[in-house]
């Protein structure tokens, strides 16, 4: 028994089966990421002034990753076109390029961007103690400029042991530029280029701190959304890369020799998925890095 229209198109719909299937799958993916992005909007609208952080992500690196994904979307189309022209060698190289792009994207996320966040700490100051830390927060300056209040002092935590040891009464933090020089108008807006923490050490008394945590998912609604959405997106990238690797391996060459159109269809379907993953990133990048 043979299932009809696996490779050839059905005349009245003009489609083969997997193409219908992948578009339906993408529709459900739109709803999945749509749910997560709605949650982002919902939580962001609910946030009190000063509670939604800005400028904590590395914009140049994010821009680079965006470019890498867009390039991979181009190469996967070229790979498909090469198959349609029955040029397997060209296909093989373009597929390799796509796989490498996906791998670089994941590598940057997992070995550079994410770990950096876990090294970075932020201390939320109790509302009635904000004035005491005016040199770090610069809220008078912020108020004059009509900026949201600053509630958090962030940077690299020098004395990690203070987190667990009740005998240590203070946190020592190598301050981020915004807390090192809060009244400087250059610090009013997030910067495009990444600015590492300064040499200046800020001392914060434990009892003035409402909560201290690294920039992990537990830090705020912002980082919760960031890690959940980029995590799920990363899982999609990983899935795409694994499937592409399968299509690039010699096992697919056998399918090509047997039925080249079948392999071309498979690449087309996975390419559609890959474009979708790319498209999700086109939303992630401005929402988390820029806005």
């Amino acid at each position, binding site marked *: *028994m*043979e*299932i*009809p*229209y*696996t490779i050839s198109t*059905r*005349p*009245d*719909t003009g*489609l*083969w*089966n*997997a193409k*219908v*299937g992948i578009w*339906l*799958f993408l*529709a*459900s*993916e739109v*709803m*999945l*990421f*749509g*749910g*997560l992005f*709605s*949650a982002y909007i*919902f*939580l962001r609208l*609910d*946030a009190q002034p000063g*509670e939604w952080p800005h400028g904590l992500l590395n914009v140049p690196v994010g821009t680079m990753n965006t470019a890498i994904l867009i390039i991979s979307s181009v190469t996967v189309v070229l790979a498909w076109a090469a198959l349609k022209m029955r040029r397997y060698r060209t296909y093989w190289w373009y597929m390799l390029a796509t796989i490498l792009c996906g791998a670089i994207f994941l590598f940057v996320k997992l070995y550079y961007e994410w770990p950096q966040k876990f090294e970075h700490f932020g201390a939320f100051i109790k509302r009635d103690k904000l004035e005491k830390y005016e040199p770090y927060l610069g809220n008078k300056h912020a108020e004059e400029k009509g900026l949201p209040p600053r509630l958090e002092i962030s940077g690299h935590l020098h004395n990690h042991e203070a987190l667990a040891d009740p005998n240590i009464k203070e946190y020592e933090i190598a301050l981020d530029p915004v807390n090192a020089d809060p009244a400087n108008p250059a610090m009013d807006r997030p910067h495009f280029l990444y600015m590492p923490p300064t040499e200046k050490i800020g001392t914060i008394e434990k009892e003035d701190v409402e*909560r201290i*945590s690294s920039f*992990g*998912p*537990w*830090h*705020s*609604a*912002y980082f*919760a*959304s960031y*890690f*959940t959405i980029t995590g*799920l997106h990363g899982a999609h990238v990983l899935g795409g890369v694994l499937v592409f690797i399968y299509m690039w391996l010699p096992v697919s060459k056998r399918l090509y020799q047997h039925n080249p159109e079948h392999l071309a269809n498979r690449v087309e379907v996975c390419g559609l998925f890959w474009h979708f993953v790319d498209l999700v990133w086109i939303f992630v990048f401005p929402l988390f890095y820029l806005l």
Partner: protein
Amino acid sequence: MDASTSLPPSPGFGVTSETPRDPHAHDASHEHHELGWWRKYIFSTDHKVIGIQYGICGLIFLFFGFSLMMLMRWQLAYPGQALPVLGKWLPYFFGANTMPDGKMTPEFYNSLGAMHGTIMIFLGVVPVAFAAFGNFVVPLQIGAPDMTFPKVNAASFWAFWVGGLIMLTSFFVPGGAAKGGWTSYTPLSDISDKGPAFHLIFNGQTLWLIGFIFLITSSLLGAINFITTIIQLRAKGLTWMRLPFFVWAQFVTAFLLLLAFPPLEAAIVMQLMDRTAATSFFLPAGMVVNGAPLNISGGGSPLLWQHLFWFLGHPEVYVLILPAFGIVGEILANNSRKPLWGYKSLVFSVLVIGFLSFIVWAHHMWLTGMGSTVSAFFQTTTLLISIPSVIILSAFFISLWGGSIRFNVPMLFATAFLPMFGIGGLTGIPLAFNSADLYLHDTYYVIAHFHYIVAPGTLFGLFAGIYYWYPKATGRKMNEFWGKVHFWPSLICMNLIFMPQFLQGMLGMHRRWYDGGQGWTVGGDHVWGLTGFQWNTPISWGAWIMGLAQIPFIINFFWSIKHGEKVNDNPWEATTLEWTAPSPPPHGNFVTTPVAYRGPYEYSLPGRDRDFTMQNEPVEPTERTRRKAVEEPVLV
């Protein structure tokens, strides 16, 4: 896909499938020896086997979920008393802390309530109504050899199976199964089953979430497969308006599952993050639990969960009812020997229901105080959605008018479906109004309302479908007498259980009371001679008797596989394409590729010697002049 060519022949069970008419019979029997029992019946990719697997698993889960409720009914009718006999043995099964001395603890009661809802809906009704009937019947009705993606189909079943297993496992972890209700409202479900006594992952609520991810994956794969199959694999000449109504119902259901489940998956991922990665998606700042402030970032919103949950939750209601509509429509037309009345309006009603079901979800959240503008919008859409539902029900009633009705067992269940669904639907209208719902919300009235829709409604539709398509799966009929012994007590008990709950609800009795209302003032108010609390006793006895009434069905179901009355390929003298296939259909389904020449319900055509004309019977020249409505077959 092409690997499916090397699959075993026999899809049904009990009867050998190779028929002398099958041109591939020789090949098939050759491969049959190579594949063996496991590939044929367990790890099969044949849509009929998967349908039957889904059906049997779903029925077992249905009975298990019902058993949980039968246990709860003891606590409601006789709160604090030891359960006789079973009460001694259940602690050995569920754990010592669940029913010490046969008395149910409040925690265990909460677990039973949450798992009853979860299991009945997501492991019982959806698998049977959508996956089992959809898998078995839809490809046959559209004249397809199988689903478009047989391996994906098998993956869907196994994802369901793993999800079900995880849900069941959660009963046996420390602390027991999830306790937050089937809706798992936050912040309660974010903080329950947490603390030193619980494992981070292996606790009831977290396992509930993980199990759900598998169930959603299963529905997603199934839904994609169904839609693609219906679009791509319709037989020649089977145009959209010649599809049986059941196929339309499944088509819309598949779209609901495809588009409504992912937002819940998003919510479940977020709750999982809340529980395992210390995020605060659903937790506002300043939460205090057991007198101690939680160390969380806050900034989350409990209402976000409700929105995302009900964005699935309401379409889900239609996932439960639409397949039953489809089944009932088929059986009514077949047994009244008349075309289904208003076929096109039925189809468009189902489509409108599908669309509207996405914009009514907030009527589950009137108590959250959304403001009058938002409430007005959702009240309007909620009332609008009742219009297509009423059209469908009316068309079904009119279909009966003037028919020569055969009251066989499928027809009994199908006709009982109509008033039962009617009661469930009409009692929903007060809940659609913000002002009335403020009083009725979370009372037994709501329980009675939706159970009238899914229990004597959908479940009767499913029983009707099982009795109706059983001969196609096995080549034998289920016993008529025992079918009636199953039907009448079930119908009476259903009403005995749910009708008094309307009264209890109108007294103000809350749906989640552990003691059945005994300790509450409103539980002592009288209605029809009994207090609200005392009504629990007849309701509980009704539930237990209904449990007994399922025994004839279970025995009949298994006994008839080998010993039922043997019947031909079309025992009900029906018109749709599945009845042109052999019973049970071989692998690949049809002996000759079917072609459809006419609509799905050509019953009692004038001038014919039989009162049914099957879809694959060509239009005769005489007929063409007499009946202008029968068009040329559209061949593609």
